Structure formats: C-alpha cells, structure tokens
C-alpha cells in the first residue's frame, strides 16, 4: 500500500517534469530548433484523444460488455483514412487564416460570424464539462484507490474533503501555467505540444506495462488467461460478438467517435491548429491508428483478469491499478497511476487551453467590443487583459467540470460521462465538414443546425443526467415533461429501445444535418461568407491570392496598426512581426508610413492569431481609414475583377491566335506572291518569243522560206511550252487544293512504266541516250491512279534524258517489289545533284542545273507535281545522288 506522501510528491515531480519539458520546447521554438518537427510528435500529440477514460474506462467497459469498448477507437481509425483529404484541408485553411480554435474556424467559414463563434463556444464549454469532470473523477478515484481510501460512491463529500477539488485546483494552476504563460503573436503552443506528446508516450508505456504484467506475470501466457476466462460462464459472453441491438449501438458509437476525433476542441487544437507540417498528417494517418491499437491490445486481458481476480467487488474502472496493487507491485501501480495522470492532465491542459482561447476570442472579446469599446480603447496593453480573460476562462472551465463531477458525475461510469461530451462535440461535424466540402452552406444553416442539435443533446442527454443525480426532478424521464409521453428524453417521439447515446445521436444529428442543409438551401450567403466559403472549400486547389487584401479600401498608418497589434501581442512581438512582413516585401519598416491593403491584411491576420478572426476584423477596422468596404461593393469588385480577368485572358488567347494566323497569312501571301511572280515570269518568257517572232513574220513578208520556217517552228515550240506550263501550274494548283480527280485502283506496275518509256524513247533517241529497262516478268501490282503515275514516270524519265550527257547518256529504269510495296527507280549518269538540293529540287520552280549548264528547258514544276502526286498516292519520292555521279530517283508506292 502506498501513502499519500509517496504518491503526491511523485505526481508533483511528474507534473514539474512536464512543465520543464514545455518550457524547454518553447525555448527551442524561439531558437528555431523546434522539438515538434517530427511526424511522430504530431501523431503522439493527437493521442491526447486517449484520456483517463481510455486508460481506466476501457477496461471498465470491457469488463461489462466485452468488445463494447472498441468503437471509440474504431471510429478514429476509420476516419484516419480521410485525414489526408479533410484534415490537411483544415490545417491549410487554419494556417492561411490564422485560425485559433474550432469556434474561430466555423465563425471564419461562415462569414466571420461572431454569433456562430459564440454559439460554438457555449456548446463546447457546456458539452465538454462532463468530460472534464470525468478526468477529475478519475484522478481523485485512482488516487484514493492507490492510498486505500474507500471511495465514496454515491454521497458527495464536502468540498474541502473532496480529493477531486484539490485535483481540480492543481490542474487549473497547471493549465494556466501551460497555456497562458504569455501571449504569442502565434496561435501555436509548441512547448505544450511537446509535453502532450511526451504524456502520450508515458500513458502508452504505463498501460502496456500493466498489460504485460497481467498477461505474463499473473498468468503464464495469454493463452492461459483466455482459456481460464472462457471456462467461466459469466466471462464467456464477453467474447461473443454483440447482438443486434448492441450492434446498432456499436455502429453508432463508431460513427460518433469518428466524428469527434476532429470535432472535439482539443483534437482540433492539436490536429489542426498546432499542425506544423501537412506532411505530418500523412504519417499520423497510420501512426495514430497504430497507437490506438497498441493501447487497446491489453484492455480485454486486463478486464478478464480483473473479473477473475476480484469478481464484482472492485470497480472495474480501477482494475489497472487494483491488479498490480493486489499482487504487491506498488511501483508498477504507481507507474500506472502516473500513466493515468498523464492521460488526464494531457486532456485537461489541451482542452482548457482550447476552450479558454474560444471563450476569450469568440465570447468575451466580441462582447467587450460591443458593450464597452471605450474601455478597450483606454487600455494601453491589452495583452495582459487577454491573458487574464484566458486564465479566468480556464478556472471557469475546470470549475464547471468539478461542479458536474461533484453533483452529478458520481452516478455514472466513466465511459458514459465521456460519451455525453462526445455527442455534444459531434454537433459541430455537419457545419465543419459541410464548411470545407460544400460552398452552399450558409451561416443561417450552420446556426440552425447547430442550435437544434445542441438543444436536442441537452434535452436527451444532459438534462436527464441532472435528473438522475436527483439534482432536478426526475419524473420527466419516465413520464415525459408534463405527461407528454412523446417527449420522453430517452424515447423521443416514441423511438424507444435504444441506448440513450444512440438515441440522442440519431435525433440530434438528424435535426442538425437536416436543418443545416435545408436552411442553407433556403437562405442566401452574405458577401464575405461567399468569399470565405470559396476560400475554404477550394483551399487545396492551387490558387493565387487568398484575396484577403482586397477587402480593404484605403489605408492606415503603419504606426497605428503597430500600436494596435502591440496592445494585443506585446510591443516586441508586434515589432518583430511587422519588420518581418516588411522585409518579406522588400521594404524597411521604418520607411513605410502608410500601410497599404496588404499591410492591413497582414495586421488583421496577426491579430487573428491572438483574438480570433471576427474580433481582429473589428479592431483593424477601427484604425484603418476608409473603412471596410461595403460588402456588396466588395462582391461587385470581385465579380467584376474576375470577369475582367477571364475576359482579358480570353482576349489574350484570341489575340495570340490572331497573331499566329496573321503571321501564317503573311507567309502564305508572300509565298503566293513569289509563286505568282515566278509563274508570270515563266509565262512571259515563251510569250516574249512568240510575240517577237510573230511580229517579225508579220513585218517581213519577204523573209526567205527557210528562215520563215525556222521562226514558225520557234513560235509553235514556245506555244507548246506555254501550254505545258499552264497545264502544270493548273495541275499543281489542283493537287495542292486537293481538287484533282483521282482514280486509284490496283494496276500492273510494269505496264505503267512501259507506257512512260514509250512516251520518252523518242526523246532519248534524239539525244543519243540509251535506256536500260529492267522489268520483272511476273506482274507487280501497285495501288495508283494510272495516268498520274505515268505522268510522274514520264517526268522523271524526261528529266533523266535531259540531264544525261548527249550521245553518251545511259538511263536505267526499273521496277521491283520493295519494303512491302512497289519501287520505281530511274537512274541517269548526268551531273547529279548536290546533297544540299536533295530536298529543294522538289520545290516549285527549282532548277539546280542552272549553274552548270545552260538553263534546262523545263518549267521547274515537274518534280513539285510529281511529289504532290506521289504523296497523294500515299507513297514517297526521293533522290540519291552525288555530284558528278548521276542521279537516281526513287518512287515508293503501296502495293495492291
């Protein structure tokens, strides 16, 4: 057995250690060497979820109902899957808007509504009251168990003899020391988070130590424990899965705890407000469920062992202490007590700090601003006032918890008390999740849903708990108020046969969610609300401006803003933050006199961190000249601006398109000009000869017949050339326009080549050029238009004849199957074509022969037309040639 003089110093020493850790954590944070930059610290801090209720109550519940303790951990585990989406979004929003609490978050989302923030705060304070009382009760009960004072269950002891009272006093002092030592410009508490993470570690180790002792110390192995338990009929039922009714409760509780893992003020505080890196969320999404698994691993073994060891004599909530104590392991029992103390203090510290922030920022400050603005203006340093408000808020919150524990909580088990709070916190879920997922949610909807849910919760859970303790008349529970049976709090509108928690949850969530959606659809959003809704819902979309700066028209004096901020966050903090902001924009703080909209928005965010968004807005408005813009006006400007932006973007795109099209047109135009002038030049040449000789013939009737004959021949020849040229230009134009008629079908390649050869043989003979033919005997089928193919081949053959040396020219013409198609090859032994021209000779009016010989008598269009034809036939034409070694043209066409 332990004496109070062993237990109390141990507990105080532990609390002192925690405090030192927090102090050290804050110092490290100031030195930019944060203790909480590891994901595991973040995950452990979220484990503040596991309070003394987990530490002691789970065993109690398991001893009574087997796996009934599990939903409380199953819900969060399932929910962790969605963290990367939802929690990350909330963390990002909170960072951007300097959110200080869940009340601040909801108020900011629904148009910086002070009414909503206040309502959330009131619900939270009342809702969490039983939960705090649970911790006080647990610490005092376990202390009594440890020092062997018989716990007095049903009679409230006098306050000064009540252990819980001293526990409350101690924890209040401790929470004040932790949470309100100073007011930062920041809404974060790094030291506190470090201490909380440490507590989570301690409670896990302590619980597992007890578990291991029970399984391997009291019994030889888990197998032995379970065998013995299974042989006991009263325990065997603990192994069975829940029946249909409790299965419903099981699902309801899983759902409930899945919601509260984010909605409880302290969970929102550690998971969202204190989050330093979005990446931590990814890790926490598996670390935290792992933590829950580990801390639940020994719940059932301890519960079974407790039942076997004590029967029903000992409160099962205390098995974790009673088992080691009963076995004489006082040191282990003390360690378990410290573990439980960790769980309780962790919860109370974070919860009270979160609630005090809410009370201060969302309840007291807005009230003061409204009721006594002159009072605020008169005070030079408001940071002292803020601290004082928060400290009293902590006192109030713990005090309410104590009163609940003192007057009401005696009649309930730990788990039941905790669930009442869970059901209250769950009321925030529709507005919270709706707020980040649905732009249409309005503040009226949130207010309506939240109020309805809270009222039903109050009526179906809290009020009956008052009644049960005899504090108010209990008749309305069984008979309904004034005899209205339909309004019985545990069987509202005749819905009976359910666990009170499940029953309350069904009605309150139905009313809450239903009204939230219905009223949102029926009501319209204000301007700021619309902006905030968009900013919140689209928080994860990569966006440019948050738009905050745009709400301000006009400016303020930097000195005024600085003075304002200094009053709330302290002169030193304010000056440092302002200087940082100035230098981040490349300015020197001393040189800036007039703050622009950006600066004003920055000051507002800075203040938001200290007093919440809604109050910060009002305060900044008081010093910023030119006021806050009319909301309709802001909206108009925003709409207009976004329209102008969209329009100008469209305009830009269009003009870029136009520019490109214009360039292309110009290019085409100059190409067309070139083409036209080249064509006209080419037409002019034969025309000049024709005209000259015609006139000579006309003016010289006495010309001798031979000369006359010669001139007439020239006229005819040039006329033919003109005709050919015109035809080719037309051909080319048609090919390019795609309007040439085609008759593509399989035909014999040899026959086409033979026709082309027949047409050019005469020309070759005239120039003394020999043509070697190489045509395979078996017919090769090619897919082509016969006339066009022959045109191409004639063009290539006549080119070859033209360029082959007179009287010693040799041309090789062949056709063969190749590359899955048919290839025609025309090779000559002419001057060849330099590699630089292998492509350009297929352009219009390109004749490479110019520089070497006299101008060849072509039109300069033959190869361009040939290429057009071959490409239309889905083939390819190209040249192989070395200057001085002849040229070889290839035409590759698809086979048939």
């Amino acid at each position: 057995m332990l004496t109070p003089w062993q237990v109390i110093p141990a507990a105080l020493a532990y609390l002192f250690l925690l405090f030192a850790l927090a102090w050290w954590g804050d110092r490290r944070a100031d030195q930019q060497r944060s203790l909480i930059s590891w994901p595991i610290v973040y995950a452990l801090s979220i484990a503040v979820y596991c309070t003394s209720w987990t530490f002691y109550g789970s065993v109690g519940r398991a001893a009574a109902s087997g796996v009934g303790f599990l939903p409380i951990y199953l819900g969060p585990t399932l929910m962790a899957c969605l963290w990367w989406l939802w929690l990350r979004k909330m963390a990002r929003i909170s960072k951007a808007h300097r959110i200080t609490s869940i009340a601040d978050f909801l108020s900011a989302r629904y148009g910086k509504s002070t009414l909503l923030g206040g309502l959330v705060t009131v619900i939270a304070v009342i809702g969490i009251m039983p939960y705090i009382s649970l911790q006080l009760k647990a610490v005092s009960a376990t202390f009594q168990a440890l020092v062997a004072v018989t716990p007095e269950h049903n009679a409230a002891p006098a306050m000064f003899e009540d252990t819980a009272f001293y526990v409350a006093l101690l924890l209040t002092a401790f929470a004040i020391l932790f949470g309100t030592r100073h007011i930062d410009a920041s809404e974060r508490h790094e030291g506190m988070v470090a201490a909380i993470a440490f507590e989570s570690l301690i409670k896990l180790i302590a619980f597992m130590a007890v578990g291991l002792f029970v399984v391997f110390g009291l019994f030889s192995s888990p197998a032995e424990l379970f065998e013995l338990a299974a042989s006991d009929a009263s325990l065997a039922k603990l192994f069975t899965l829940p029946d249909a009714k409790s299965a419903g409760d099981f699902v309801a509780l899983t759902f409930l705890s899945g919601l509260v893992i984010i909605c409880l003020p302290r969970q929102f505080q550690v998971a969202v407000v204190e989050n330093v890196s979005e990446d931590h969320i990814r890790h926490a999404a598996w670390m935290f469920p792992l933590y829950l698994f580990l801390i639940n691993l020994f719940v059932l073994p301890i519960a079974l062992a407790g039942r076997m060891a004590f029967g029903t004599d000992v409160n099962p909530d205390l098995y974790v202490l009673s088992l080691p104590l009963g076995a004489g392991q006082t040191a282990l029992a003390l360690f378990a007590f410290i573990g439980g103390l960790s769980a309780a203090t962790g919860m109370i510290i974070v919860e009270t700090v979160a609630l005090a922030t809410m009370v201060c920022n969302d309840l007291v400050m807005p009230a003061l601003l409204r009721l006594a603005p002159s009072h605020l203006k008169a005070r030079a340093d408001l940071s002292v006032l803020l601290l004082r408000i928060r400290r009293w808020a902590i006192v109030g919150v713990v005090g309410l918890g104590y009163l609940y524990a003192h007057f009401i909580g005696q009649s309930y088990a730990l788990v039941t008390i905790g669930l009442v709070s869970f059901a209250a916190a769950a009321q925030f879920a529709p507005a919270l999740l709706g707020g980040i997922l649905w732009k249409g949610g309005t503040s009226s909807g949130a207010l309506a849903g939240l109020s309805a849910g809270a009222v039903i919760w109050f009526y179906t859970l809290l009020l009956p708990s008052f009644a049960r303790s005899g504090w108010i008349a209990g008749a309305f529970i069984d008979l309904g108020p004034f005899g209205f049976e339909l309004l019985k709090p545990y069987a509202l509108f005749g819905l009976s046969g359910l666990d009170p928690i499940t029953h309350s949850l069904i009605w309150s969530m139905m009313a809450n969610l239903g009204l939230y959606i219905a009223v949102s659809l029926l009501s319209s959003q204000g301007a700021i609300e619309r902006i905030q809704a968009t900013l919140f819902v689209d928080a994860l979309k990569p966006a440019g401006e948050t738009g905050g700066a745009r709400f301000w028209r006009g400016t303020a004096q930097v000195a005024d803003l600085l003075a304002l901020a200094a009053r709330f966050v302290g002169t030193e903090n304010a000056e440092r933050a302002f200087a940082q902001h100035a230098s981040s924009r490349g300015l020197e703080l001393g040189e800036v006199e007039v703050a622009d909209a950006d600066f004003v928005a920055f000051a507002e965010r800075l203040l938001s961190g200290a007093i919440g968004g809604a109050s910060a807005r009002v305060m900044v408005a008081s010093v910023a000249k030119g006021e806050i813009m009319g909301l309709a006006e802001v909206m108009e400007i925003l709409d207009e601006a976004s329209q102008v932006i969209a329009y100008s973007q469209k305009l830009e795109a269009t003009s870029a398109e136009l520019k490109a099209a214009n360039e292309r047109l110009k290019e085409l135009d100059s190409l067309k000009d070139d083409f036209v002038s080249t064509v006209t030049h080419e037409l002019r040449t034969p025309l000049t000869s024709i005209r000259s000789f015609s006139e000579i013939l006309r003016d010289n009737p006495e010309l001798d017949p031979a000369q006359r004959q010669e001139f007439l021949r020239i006229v005819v020849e040039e006329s033919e050339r003109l005709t050919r040229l015109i035809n080719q230009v037309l051909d080319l134009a048609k090919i390019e326009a795609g309007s040439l008629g085609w008759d593509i079908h399989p035909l014999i390649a040899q026959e086409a080549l033979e026709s082309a050869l027949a047409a050019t043989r005469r020309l070759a003979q005239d120039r003394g050029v020999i043509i070697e033919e190489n045509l395979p005997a078996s017919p090769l089928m090619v897919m082509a238009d016969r006339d066009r193919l022959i045109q191409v081949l004639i063009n290539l053959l006549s080119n070859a004849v033209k360029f082959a040396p007179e009287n010693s020219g040799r041309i090789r013409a062949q056709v063969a199957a190749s590359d899955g198609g048919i290839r025609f090859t025309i090779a000559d032994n002419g001057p060849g074509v330099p590699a630089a021209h292998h492509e350009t000779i297929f352009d219009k009016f390109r004749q490479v022969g110019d520089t070497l010989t006299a101008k060849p008598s072509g039109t300069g269009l033959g190869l361009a037309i040939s290429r057009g034809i071959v490409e239309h036939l889905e083939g390819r034409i190209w040249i192989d040639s070395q200057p001085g070694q002849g040229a070889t043209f290839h035409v590759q066409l698809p086979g048939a």
Partner: protein
Amino acid sequence: MGRSVLVVDDESNIVLSLEFLMRQAGFEVRIARDGEQALEEVARQPPDLILLDVMMPKRDGYDVCQTVRANPLWKNVRIIMLTAKGREIEREKGLAMGADDYITKPFSTREVVERVRQYLG
C-alpha cells in the same frame, strides 16, 4: 562604221529574235548568254548599247549594269534593261543601277527597234 549592240539573255529564242531585229535595223550584233559572258564581251570591245535581261544565271542584269557603270572607260555604253511587267521593282532597281532605259517583256518588236535607234541616233 556601224553601231554595235550587245544582246544579253539566257533564252536562246529571245536572243535569236533580238539579233534578227538589230541586224535588220543595221546594227552590228554580238551575243551573250549570261552576265559573265556579257562582261567579257564588254571588256573585249565595249558596245554602243546593251540590251540586258535581268534574270540570268551567274551574274544577273543588275550586276552587269553596275559593273559597266563603275568603269569610266565604258561611260558611253547605253544600257536598256529588259524587265518583266508587273515587277516595277526591277525597273526602278535597273534605273538606280545606272540603266538608261527599260523595256518590258513581252515587248513590241517595233518599240525595241525605235528605242534602240533613239539612243544610237
């Protein structure tokens, strides 16, 4: 002694017709088929007048015109450029290079003879 005309064009049929016309008009005619040949002919014996086509292989008409004009020995050589209608730029460029006149193709044979006579008296 007869006046000499140098006909410069790469189109043999055009050269043939101009040669006929100039001979008939009583001038002494020499022929060049491109710019280089033209300058060789001028260097060998400057003609009194050059009928000069613009678009030619090797050195074009402008080039020839400019070279001739650059030499003080040849300052008395008249130059008539044969340009294409619709290509005012050719005419202007030719005049800028120092040509005395221009005739657009296709030309009237009578006009060519008239114009040449005008310059050669």
